[in-house]
């Protein structure tokens, strides 16, 4: 490759980055795969705990988008907002600010396919950074509709 061609390629790269600007890209988000496997819980397993009346209930937080939460969410879960955005992280931090660090917390999103979810790893990291060690993440492979609602797991609606 000539020096001339390399220089053009570099310029195009810089141009692409500049044009990209505020347009979100996968690289902008920490991937869900960064969440430790030990922190994951399968939807069916978590649904089973919801039906076990004797089990202590964790704090359940939805960190996806409001319009999905309003249509369907896990009963008892609270909406805190998209953790990929600053507002969402702030609401999340405020919600857990007064909780003991050993509190059981379960977070879920399901806005997008797991590999491209912009919210779930951001939420997990925010809680981890605050010192919460008992955080579980519901592994939603496709989306909340497919992996939760369509499975017949308990569902509530409304904001």
């Amino acid at each position, binding site marked *: 490759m000539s020096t001339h061609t390399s220089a053009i390629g570099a310029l195009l790269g810089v141009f692409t980055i500049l044009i990209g600007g505020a347009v979100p890209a996968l690289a902008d*988000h920490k991937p869900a795969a960064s969440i430790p496997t030990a922190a994951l819980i399968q939807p069916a397993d978590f649904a089973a705990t919801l039906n076990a*009346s004797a089990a202590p209930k964790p704090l359940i937080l939805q960190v996806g988008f409001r319009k999905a939460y*309003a249509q369907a969410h896990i009963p008892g879960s609270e909406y805190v907002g998209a953790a*990929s955005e600053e507002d969402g992280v702030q609401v999340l931090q405020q919600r857990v600010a007064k909780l003991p660090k050993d509190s059981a917390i379960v977070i879920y999103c399901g806005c997008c396919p797991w590999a*491209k979810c912009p919210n779930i790893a951001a939420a997990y990291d925010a809680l981890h950074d605050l010192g919460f060690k008992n955080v579980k993440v519901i592994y939603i492979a496709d989306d909340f509709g*497919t992996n939760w609602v369509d499975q*017949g797991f*308990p569902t509530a609606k409304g*904001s």
Partner: protein
Amino acid sequence: MRSSRIAALALGLLLAGAAWALGPGDVAPDFALAGFNGKPLRLADYRGKLVLLNFWASWCVPCLEEMPRLSAWQRNYGAAGLQVIGVSMDDEAAPAKRLLAKQPVDYPIGLGDDKLGERYGGILGLPQSFLIDRRGLILARYKGEANLSQMEAAIKSQLEVPP
């Protein structure tokens, strides 16, 4: 306590079994949104065209990855009868409009809400698209990252069907 749990379970089953079943063969629910271009955006106005209805959001990476293809289809197949319509599921219009200023598309877009999502069988993950025939019947529902080559083949095939 027991009765409330039974009621919650019944509600869950009801939601899972009934409200989320919209799919091929069903009539696409009509809607009227305020288009980002300042014009009303009504599905019924496109009766007689093959419609690709795409739900998306500004923070949804796979949505943004497929939108340039959708825009190209509008340019390439619009004259043959295709109409792409975008519905943003962002909380507000502002972030979607900012995104579109940087990544414009060649089809109309409006802001949807949870009620519209429910009428379309639950828009609980993005992206999500519906291919709607010229009579207003749903031909296909694409959830998540669709195979765009297959989607384009379906569009081309449908455009060959006489109006």
